[in-house]
């Protein structure tokens, strides 16, 4: 089951570590908002400007005012209705405050993450290059195009691209990952972020953002309730919620003359209570919090979206365009097999191959040693001089003092050496090499002097768990498309093993753009990840372009989301976070609407029963009195908001399932559940408060 609960998936090791790291991060920044601050924030949001952003809650606020006025009148006239009216007023006020608190909590969580970063950066100093030399300026005065010099031990003052130099950088301030990474001018890893620390060397960096426009600033803007842009489907949903609110406003307002016509007088407080219970306050109150929390979840996964739209669209992605290397396979090839030639002791082949690789620092070399050890070889170091790999000879190995020489290398290079040394090629050698190539692996021949021992298979290793995730994506209807520069044979083998739906071999970066266009022409929404400058057009064309933070400035600018961890697997997390955001909205909308039925059955009889006792027959719940019935309904209506805040912040669990299964499941839980739950809940509240009224 892929679960998205804030920190991305827990399946593979890398992400487990991230998760732990992020949690530590959170704790240190004090994500928990203090109750007093929360109250202050909730009260502050009562100002009309802020309420006007949310029509549903604005109606509740106006209803509260009406009730308050009526309460004042009731006390002035000593009509005996004062206490009841006062209580309703207070509950309605609480309803608005709960909704405000939900937004405030979501915002606090989001800002806590970004806030500390901004604080450190505010104090940053930069050495800006001028015609005459360099000057020290505050980092927030740097503008796009400025060039700054950074020396080892300093913090990078602004987002930018390295023009000259290379250096290792600690990016833990941004990613939470403390292992240093290499950034170098002129490569695909030339981007640097503000607040990260240069550990070695010296860099010349061109600033790529104006103040207020850095990744960090955009990140903060996404979680700030007041300035946040609503996403497209949030806007459309708001239209629907406003319409429902308007419908119920019409229903309640017209109820006055209708009731009067049949000789029933209605109490304004009761009517306002009915209105507030009917309009979708649950989803209306939690909608901003859901949106902010969605952005915050993306941020926790170290995905920085440039707009809320990017996070939302991720949920609708139909096709994932994935680079093979780094996404599907672990970047480097690994030894997977020792294939000895006929008549050769496999143990001997292992031994020679492994000893030849003992001093080889490359991942391939290390993997040969690891495989030999895994197959039970005890490796004892030998006295020999190392012959390093050279592009000219295409072999490496060991030379012993007694003249023996062991070599491993490209099959034809080794074969030539063996033949030159007077050896004969074993009869099955060609077949072995061919078999290994055919399966998508790279053959590496091993020779001991003039004797050819066998072949090592170096294969791309599929990331652990990736095949399961592709299966889950397929289950959810997302198509995966692998892009690789490999030859078709290798590509086919990897594609089959990883279980991608389709692949393109010998692909050039330009082809990516074509592919994206073709998929889009078929109506699909496409996501891709990239880092290089030549990826930029494709990143811009894709509906969701995810750039690695280590990537070039061009790539980061073209993309609509940046992954601070530069982990290609993040594309999958992005899809799940997007889906989660949308499902949470849909689920709470359904829940909110379904709730109305029970509230009707509580309030309608209460409003009319006093004048027409026969209408008490509609009181299915047998509530204590009209007043306690109305109070129970509004109390339920108010309490359901804080009860669902954790749910709104955490998001609905996304299960890998087909759309039909997901729809069925969510309808059962939130539709049917929303229909039934309020009945016992309202009855329970009535039992508790009934004796008082």
């Amino acid at each position, binding site marked *: 089951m892929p679960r998205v609960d804030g920190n991305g998936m827990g399946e593979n090791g890398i992400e487990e570590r991230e998760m732990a790291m992020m949690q530590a991060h959170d704790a240190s920044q004090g994500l928990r908002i203090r109750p007093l601050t929360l109250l202050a924030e909730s009260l502050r949001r009562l100002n009309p400007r802020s309420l006007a952003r949310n029509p549903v809650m604005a109606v509740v606020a106006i209803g509260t005012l009406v009730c308050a006025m009526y309460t004042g009148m009731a006390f002035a006239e000593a009509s005996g209705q004062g206490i009841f009216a006062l209580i309703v007023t207070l509950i309605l006020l609480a309803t608005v405050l709960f909704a405000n608190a939900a937004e405030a909590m979501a915002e606090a969580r989001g800002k806590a993450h970004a806030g500390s970063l901004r604080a450190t950066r505010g104090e940053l100093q930069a050495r800006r290059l001028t015609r005459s030399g360099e000057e020290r300026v505050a980092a927030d005065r740097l503008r796009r195009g400025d060039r700054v010099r950074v020396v080892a031990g300093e913090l990078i003052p602004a987002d930018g691209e390295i023009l000259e130099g290379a250096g290792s950088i600690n990016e833990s301030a941004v990613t939470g990952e403390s292992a240093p990474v290499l950034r170098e001018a002129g490569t695909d890893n030339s981007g640097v972020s503000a607040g990260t620390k240069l550990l070695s060397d010296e860099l010349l960096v061109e600033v790529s953002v104006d103040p207020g426009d850095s990744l960090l600033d955009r990140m903060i803007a996404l979680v700030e309730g007041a300035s946040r842009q609503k996403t*497209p*489907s949030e*806007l*459309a*949903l708001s*239209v*629907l919620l406003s*319409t429902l609110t*308007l*419908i*119920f406003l*019409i*229903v*309640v307002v*017209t*109820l006055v*003359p*209708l*009731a*009067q*016509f*049949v*000789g*029933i007088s209605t109490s304004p407080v009761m009517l306002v209570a009915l209105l507030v219970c009917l309009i979708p306050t649950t989803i209306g109150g939690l909608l901003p919090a859901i949106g902010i929390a969605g952005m915050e979840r993306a941020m926790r996964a170290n995905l920085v979206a440039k707009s809320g739209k990017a996070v*939302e*669209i991720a*949920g*609708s992605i*139909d096709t994932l365009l994935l680079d093979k290397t780094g996404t599907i396979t672990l970047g480097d090839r690994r030894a997977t097999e020792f294939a000895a030639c006929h008549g050769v002791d496999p143990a001997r082949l292992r031994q020679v191959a492994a000893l030849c690789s003992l001093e080889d620092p490359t991942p391939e070399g290390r993997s040969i040693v690891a495989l030999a050890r895994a197959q039970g070889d005890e490796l004892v170091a030998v006295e020999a001089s190392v012959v390093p790999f050279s592009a000219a000879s295409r072999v490496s190995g060991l030379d012993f003092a007694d003249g023996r020489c062991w070599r491993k290398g490209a099959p034809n290079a080794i074969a030539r050496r063996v033949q030159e040394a007077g050896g004969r090629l074993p009869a099955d050698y060609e077949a072995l090499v061919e078999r290994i190539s055919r399966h998508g692996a790279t053959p590496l021949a091993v020779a001991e002097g003039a004797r050819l021992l066998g072949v090592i298979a170096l294969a791309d290793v599929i990331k652990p768990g990736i095949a399961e995730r592709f299966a889950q994506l397929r*289950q*959810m*209807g997302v*198509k995966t498309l692998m892009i690789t520069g490999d030859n078709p044979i290798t590509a086919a083998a990897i594609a089959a093993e990883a279980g991608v739906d389709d692949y393109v071999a010998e692909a050039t970066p330009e082809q990516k753009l074509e592919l994206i266009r073709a998929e889009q022409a078929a*109506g*699909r929404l496409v996501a891709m990840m990239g880092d290089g400058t030549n990826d930029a057009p494709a990143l811009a064309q894709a509906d969701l372009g995810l750039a690695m933070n280590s990537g070039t400035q061009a790539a980061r600018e073209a993309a609509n989301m940046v992954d601070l961890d530069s982990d290609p697997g993040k594309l999958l997390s992005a899809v799940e976070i997007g*889906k*989660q955001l*949308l*499902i949470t909205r*849909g*689920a709470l*909308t*359904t829940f909110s609407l379904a709730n*109305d*039925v029970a509230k*009707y059955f509580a309030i*309608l009889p209460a409003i*009319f029963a006093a004048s*027409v006792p026969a*209408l008490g*027959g*509609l009181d299915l719940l047998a509530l204590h009195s009209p007043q306690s019935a109305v109070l129970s309904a509004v109390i339920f209506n108010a309490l359901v908001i804080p009860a669902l805040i954790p749910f709104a912040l955490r998001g609905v669990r996304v299960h890998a399932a*087909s*759309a*039909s299964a*997901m*729809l*069925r499941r*969510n*309808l059962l839980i939130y539709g049917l559940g929303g229909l039934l739950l309020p009945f016992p809940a309202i009855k329970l509240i009535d039992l508790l408060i009934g004796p008082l009224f």
Partner: protein
Amino acid sequence: MSVLPLYYALLIGLALPLGLYMGRALDTHRPSVMDRLFGPLESFLMRLAGVDRRLSMTWSAYLLAVLRLHLLLIGLAWLVFMDQGVLPLNPDGIPGMRWDTALHTAVSFATNTNQQHYSGQTQLSYLSQTLAIVTLQFLTPATGLAVLLAITRTLLRRPVATNAGGGVGNYYVDLTRIVVRVLLPLSLIVALILVWQGVPATYQGAQRVTMLDGGALQVIPRGPVAPMVAIKQLGTNGGGWYGPNSTVPLENPTGLSNLIETIALLLIPVASLIAVGVISGRRRLMMGIGVVMIAFSLLTTTMIVVSERLPNAALVGLAVADSPNLEGKELRFGSDLSALWGSWTTQTSNGSVNAMHDSFNPLGGLGLLMDMFVNVTFGGIGVGLIGYLLYLMLAAFIGSLMIGRAPELFGKPLETREMRWISLAILAQPLIILGSTAITVAFPTLAGNSNPGFHGLSQVLYEYTSAFANNGSGFEGLGDATPWWNLTCVVALAVGRFLPMLVPLAVAGWLAGKRTAPQGRGSLAMESGAFVGLTAGVIVIVNLLGFLPALVLGPIAEQLTLP
């Protein structure tokens, strides 16, 4: 237990072949034998009207053509009704109508409603009945079906259209084809059966007979009744020749005529579902929609039938109390067949009656009102399914979110613009019905009710609901031939007709210009049981939640306070 299941079986048995025929005959994309059969007549008619039949209109041109033609028709009918006294074909010397009643009548018939604030046999000349009324009774159901065809071609047909600027069809061609290939032949058959059963069909004036008891003279109005009754029943029109509609033996003389007229209420609406399934290739989607409609139909029909089998409260305690509620019903038909007619006529927005709805028991009246609030239980010709599509769009919006996709309909994104218009079409119903009802009951002099209290409220509510639903049946008992009633009903009629019919056309047009995501495991399965259930839930919730308080104060209170 009763013949009612037989009526349902017969309905579906007849609608099936008709639907298949309509699917072939009305599909402009596939030539058929019918083209050769009807082609010459259609060509002649279109040449006469100066229609370029090859022109395919954009959705907005189609929409404007509908509105233009209707404005013209309303204007002409209005003039005919006001001036019928001096126009020909008026053997009984009937005077012209007052301006407001004439306007109401014109709009009422031009919106396929046939709400009547007059009594046909004494207040309309033959010219008004045949030229104005019958023309509209053919053109309005044809318009509903034509717009449905345009939406089918644009939104439903597979493979999905992706051309932004492409046409949705030609309104005049659709209109002509529907009238010539479906409405005229069917009306002819039904009219002939009715004539055989004894319904008058003549251009002579009223029959004057001398009564046997004492030689008093009785005037029996007549005219070309049978053809009008045929299209009245078939075309979800409902406005009869005679004021009391099909309760009058001259409109509905026998058991067989009652059977034919009852089946005719639902025949084309059910067949349209099948026809759209054939044309669009979305048979399973239409099956799902059909299942929901039949379920709703059975639900309210059962409710009304059961209610009418209960005795009339006024008779409780008397010796006759064991009988069903027969007040306002023809003894010829009894309670079941009256209840069935009442139920079907409100489900389809037909509005013709064979019993007085005002006299139904309160729960029966509740069932009738619920039918009209929902108004997509088969609904009016064309517009019933279009109205269902409106709810389907809402369900698709919520359903997409629930599977984690940005809202889409048939793979096309539903965005703020679409939602704004869909919302407006949904909002209009409570706004107009509850708003007009509230104002009318707030000023009792406006209402002119025959009853006070709960039933009086039901009467007013019923009148506006019937107008908005383009049903046309009445609870009556209202002095409704006043400028207030006439003009407020005109608003309800026009908004209730054109907004829910044309918004889906506009949405279909907008969606046609957008990308279409291929359907797969990850897309919303609109044929699935879960989605069908969601749509049904949306329909129930939107209507129940909006109108429950009014229903509680009207029929429900009336029921609960019965002695």
